[in-house]
C-alpha cells in the first residue's frame, strides 16, 4: 500500500513529512536532554498496550468521580478532554 498517495489528511505526504521532521528534531534534542528515543517505530501491539494504560487511568478516574460526583466534573471532563485531545494535533512530539 502506498501511503504517499493516500488522500487521508493524517497520512498525506505533508503530514508524514511533518512526523519525520518532528522525529528528527526530537532526536537531535534527545542527544542533549536525554529525551525519549524516537528512533523506534510504532507497532499495533504498542498501540494496544498504550490504550490499556489509558483505559486503566480512565477507569480509576471514573470510579473516583462516580463515587464522589461533582457538578464541575462534567464540563471540566468534557471540555478539558476535548481540548487536551486536540493539543497533539498541533505538536505530536509532546506525547505521551
Amino acid at each position, binding site marked *: 500500500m502506498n501511503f504517499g498517495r493516500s488522500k487521508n489528511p493524517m497520512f498525506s505526504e505533508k503530514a508524514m513529512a511533518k512526523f519525520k521532521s518532528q522525529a528528527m528534531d526530537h532526536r537531535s534534542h534527545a542527544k542533549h536532554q536525554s529525551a525519549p528515543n*524516537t528512533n523506534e517505530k*510504532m507497532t499495533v501491539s504498542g498501540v494496544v498496550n498504550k490504550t490499556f494504560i489509558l483505559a486503566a487511568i480512565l477507569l480509576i478516574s471514573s470510579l473516583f468521580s*462516580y463515587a464522589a*460526583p461533582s457538578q464541575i466534573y462534567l464540563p471540566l471532563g468534557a471540555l478539558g478532554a476535548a481540548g487536551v485531545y486536540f493539543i497533539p494535533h498541533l505538536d505530536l512530539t509532546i506525547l505521551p
Partner: protein
Amino acid sequence: MTAPIFALLEGLFVGTISAIYAAGFEGIIFQALTATIGTLFMMLMLYKSGIIPITQKFRMGVSMAVGAIMLLYLVSWTGYFIGFEVPYLHEGGAIGIGITVVIIGVAALNLLLDFDNFDKGEAAEAPQYMEWFFGMGLIFTLVWLYVEFLRLFSKLQRD
C-alpha cells in the same frame, strides 16, 4: 503527559455522566458497558475479516458524518445556554431513538477507522509516540459510543 491527562479528564466525565444516568435508570451502566464492549469486538471482527473495506470514500463518508454529528451537538449545546432545543435529539419516541441509533452506527464505523489508522501507522513506520496518539483516538471513540448507549437505553426505558 498529554495522553494520561486526557484519560484522567475523560474518566471524570464518564464517571459523572454514569452517576447521573444511574440515578434515573436502574442497571443502565451495565447495559451501556456491555453494549460498548460488544460493539468494539464486533467491529474488530468485521475489520479483521475485511467484510467492510476501508476505502478512501468510506473514510471520507464516516469523517463527514462524524463532523456533522459534532456540529449538531455543538449547536444543541449552544442552544442549551441561549434557550432553544434541537428537535428530537434529546427526546424519546421513535424519531429520537432512531437518531441515537444512527449516531451509534456512525460511532461504531469510526472504530473501523481507528483500527485502520493503527495498521497504516505501523506500515508507514510512524514514530513510537504515535502509539499514544492512536490510543487516545480509540479511547475517544469508545467514550463517545458508551455515552450514546447510555442515551439510547435511557430513551428506551423512558418509553
